[in-house]
């Protein structure tokens, strides 16, 4: 159940099937990001794939000596483009792979367009999702719903994507969904429909315990995306923004030209892979180690006296060069992160955020929030998030002072739109919308647990919060997830504890949840969880999501 490997195997298979010779990979805007997430250019270059082209680019040159691997989504637009391409083929041979189920009539159209018999292969390879990590996938769709209704076209896209994940992992699951969410129910029904319509396709070898697809809704946990995270990957996404493993550093003051956009891929970058879930404090130490290691190596390469030295240098040079690139990249990124942490008072902000999310002291929290949002150092975005958090946390508190905080924002000069956004967040994830016990107030057990946790004291005040998803999954794995809140779709139910779990969150996931799932996988041998979402949020994209959902 490794989604990165799933896509990688598909791509490798395509290249293998197309045979030896010079190859071009013809893709669309979606598939190009699927492939780039799992393969580095140099890696794919070794398999004789030399060119990457977009199908929509009409001004491609005629190169009959190339074999074309065409990997596209079976959209109407793509089929039209491909028909045109086949009528006037630019390459010698075409192998066509659709990333999802294609209709027979479309295949027929293509066959009729292929007058010159250039097509050698037509297949469906279900790599129709962005594999972010081995256990994380996403679709990069922000704004999937408006209120309780799916945005037009998005439901079909997500349903196709989720079924592609199932097919690529060869799982035919039982489905559970969040009862309080209309969106979850719709998606669950659609997925079920696809499975039963194409039952032959989903006929995999039966396992003792059938896999499980759990569909949940962001509405039930509106808090997590508002919180600052202190793990490397999450921080980079929050402060700099990760899009398909790429980070835009062009706004960093004094950046050199070759570092304006860097790639952080755990598949290719060992340092990143080892540290993406480490805390910011540790990262500093690790970077130092990396630097020292690098300095040692660069010093040893400096003294080239004998032939043996020279030979060693030449042999190590590619590695050395790669390492110097890695060092420069991470030093820049971490430097920028720590600059922003200092500049925007993020430690203090994060402390209050965690306190709001996990503690129960209303007056103290209110005082601190009030103080912080008036500080000049705090970003407007952080101020808004703080007020939104307060609004969510103490929505029903008798001394709720949300309105004064909003007027404090006005005083600070926060724009009208952002103030409306703060209200929108409270509506988006408020008690009426969520239907789950997010803060554990109604449940006496979790309330006492919270109390004892408070007595014990916290280890790290910046990482007190655990996302709701973790609790949900813990219950699911123990077989204690309540039927009423998360019913099965259809009559059959799981008798044993689940082993293979695919969770999909409508409205997007966060890197905090990615880490939580990673920890669950580590601490529960025999249980495999894959997490997906409509997108991977940081606080900014989350606010956009909310804005669209609340008709703003």
């Amino acid at each position, binding site marked *: *159940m*490794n989604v990165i*490997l*799933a896509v990688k*195997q*598909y791509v490798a*298979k395509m290249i293998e099937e197309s045979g030896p*010779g*010079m190859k071009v990979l013809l893709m669309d805007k979606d598939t190009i990001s699927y492939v780039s997430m799992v393969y580095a250019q140099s890696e794919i*270059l*070794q398999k*004789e794939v*030399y*060119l990457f082209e977009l199908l929509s680019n009409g001004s491609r*040159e005629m*190169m*009959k*000596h*190339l074999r074309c691997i065409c990997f596209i989504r079976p959209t109407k637009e793509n089929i039209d483009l491909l028909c045109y391409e086949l009528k006037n083929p630019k390459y*010698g041979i075409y192998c066509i792979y659709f990333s999802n*189920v*294609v209709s027979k009539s479309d*295949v*027929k159209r293509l*066959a*009729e367009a*292929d*007058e*010159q*018999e250039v*097509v050698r*292969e*037509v*297949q*469906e*390879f*279900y*790599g129709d999702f962005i594999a972010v*990590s*081995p256990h994380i996938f996403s679709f990069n769709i922000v704004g999937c719903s408006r209120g309780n209704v799916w945005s037009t076209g998005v439901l079909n896209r997500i349903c196709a994507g989720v079924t592609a994940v199932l*097919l690529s*992992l*060869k799982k035919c699951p039982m489905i559970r969904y969040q009862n309080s969410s209309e969106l979850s129910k719709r998606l669950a029904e659609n997925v079920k429909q696809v499975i039963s319509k194409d039952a032959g*396709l*989903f006929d*995999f070898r039966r396992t003792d315990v059938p896999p499980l697809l759990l569909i949940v809704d962001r509405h039930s946990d509106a808090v997590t995306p508002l919180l600052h995270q202190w793990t490397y990957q999450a921080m980079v996404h929050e402060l700099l923004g990760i899009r398909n493993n790429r980070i835009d550093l062009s706004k960093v003051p004094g950046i050199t030209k070759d570092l304006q956009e860097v790639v952080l891929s*755990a*598949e290719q970058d*060992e340092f990143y*892979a*080892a540290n*993406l*879930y480490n805390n910011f404090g540790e990262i500093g130490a690790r970077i130092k180690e990396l630097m020292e290691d690098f300095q040692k190596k660069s010093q040893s390469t400096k003294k080239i006296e004998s032939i043996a030295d020279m030979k060693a240098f030449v*042999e190590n040079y590619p590695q050395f060069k790669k390492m110097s690139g890695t060092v420069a990249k991470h030093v820049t990124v971490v430097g920028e992160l720590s600059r922003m942490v200092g500049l925007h008072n993020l430690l203090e902000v994060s402390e209050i955020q965690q306190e709001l999310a996990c503690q129960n002291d209303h007056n103290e929290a209110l005082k601190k929030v009030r103080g912080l949002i008036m500080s000049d150092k705090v970003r407007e975005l952080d101020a808004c998030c703080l007020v939104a958090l307060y609004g969510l946390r103490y929505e029903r508190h008798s001394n709720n002072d949300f309105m004064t905080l909003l007027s404090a924002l006005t005083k600070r000069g926060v724009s009208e739109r952002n103030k409306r956004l703060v209200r929108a967040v409270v509506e988006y994830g408020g008690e009426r919308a969520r239907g789950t016990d997010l803060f554990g107030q109604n449940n006496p057990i979790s309330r006492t647990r919270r109390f004892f946790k408070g007595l014990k004291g916290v280890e790290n005040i910046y990482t007190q919060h655990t996302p709701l998803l973790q609790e949900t999954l813990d219950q699911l794995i123990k077989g204690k997830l309540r039927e009423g809140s998360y019913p099965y779709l259809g009559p059959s139910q799981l008798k044993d504890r689940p082993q293979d779990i695919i969770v999909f969150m409508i409205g997007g996931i966060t890197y905090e949840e990615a880490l939580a799932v*990673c920890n669950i*996988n*580590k601490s529960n*041998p*025999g249980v*495999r969880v894959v997490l997906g979402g409509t997108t991977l949020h940081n606080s900014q994209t989350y606010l956009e999501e909310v804005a669209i959902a609340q008709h703003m």
Partner: protein
Amino acid sequence: MSATVSGDDSAVREGFLCPICMQDLNSVFQLQTHFEENHTHEDKAVLHHLKGFLGKAKKFLGKTEEQPVEREVAEADEDEGERSPGLTTPTSRVCGIDDTQWPPQELGATRGYYEYFRGQRSSHVDRNTVETNKLLIRLEKLVKFNHECAEPSKRKAFEKTVVPWKEDSSMKFCPYCMERFGLSLRRHHCRLCGNIACLKCSDFLPHACSENLLKSEEELLRDHQREQARKDKGAEGGDDEDMSGTLRLCKNCDQLLVRRLQAVREKVIKSNLVLLYQRLTEVKNHVIAQLSVYNPKVESLLYGSSTISRDVMERERTKILKNFDLIDTISKKILGLSATNSSRTHQRLIQKIRTHCTLFLQANMHTMVTLPTKEEIEKLKAERRAAITRRIQEEKQAELEAQRQERLERLEKEKRDLKTLESAKKGHVRIPSWPLNLNKNKQDTSPTKSRTGGAKTLEGGWKPSAVSQAELMASSDNPMMQQMNIIRNYIRQAKEMQKTDEVKMLEENLRELEMEYGRQSRF
């Protein structure tokens, strides 16, 4: 002890042998501890393998404990990772998820449409092929006639016999541009299909084109080569092909014929890039095949194998290096092609091919196992021989040790029960025959090595030195006598090591043996 030790090198040995030093250990646990103590630095992968193997064995022994064992192995993996964080590769622990815990993953689901696609296509394409072939036959007839007869009036008549022309009155509009025919827009007949088109929608087929169409593939190739040669000489002006023609064709037929010509050309004429690339691929495949033979051979050479000659390998090596060189030159030649073609995609392609080649060289040339020098090889061979003999010796030592223990136990029994004399005798008869390479051992083992070897075995117990063994063999064939000599030897060694209590014990043994021997000889 379950090992069956034999002097022969090639004999199959079993028991709890250490896979690296071939030492025999008595039990799984001893083997495991031995391995962890002595070989962890050598090869972690083997250790893992061993652990996995043990895990499997354990599983076989107690199927009920299946899960804990698995967990144990997994934990061992994790420990490994924590101990050496720098060594882990991203593939083994991507993003903190340990894939080793997850079952291996097969290729995801796929569904093929090619059969259906081909069925749909062939019905469509066959029509086109038939049509094109028909046109070609007619074209051939017409061209032939044109050569024989240049009179326009006769030609028209003949053209009409090849394909019947459509009646003028049947077409009021040009089928391609939909314009109405009239005085200003005349009707024209396609000479190959007989259909009508307007002036704009029909054209003369150039002579050169019709000639090329009727040529066989070989002729086309020859033409191409001739032209290429002329270009190489620098002669310009070969390009003014005869663009005039006498055969009028409609758009449809023109397209079909042009396409046919293109397809044939593509099949026959290959650009320089394609030819060079083909050569490149051949050389690359050749090198990979060579390396797959060369690398393991050198490795076994490094291990001290004497069956492979270094000179042969040296020759192999130069051959491979030459091929690497060839790859480099070809890829540079391909890079040089960019001068002739200015298109950007083409240049990108060429540069990528060059990068591909450098990557290939990096991956394969630098991982090529370096050939040891002659002196190194001699040293390696000697080391290996020494290792083998030492190993054999150690095994024998272990065997002897076992016998001694057995004997001591029996002696003790005898003390208790003096009547069972014969049984003691039996225990002494089983002394292994000494292997022939005992002498070799003396020659090859350098003094330092034999000393270290001796020290190692001293930990286990006293061992009869090789010389005294040989003497023993020569001097006496009475097992009792041999045993006594061995014990005397032990005593000497023990004295050297100044282990008084051991000496005392051994002396007691010897006395008992002497008494026994005396009694036996009296009988």
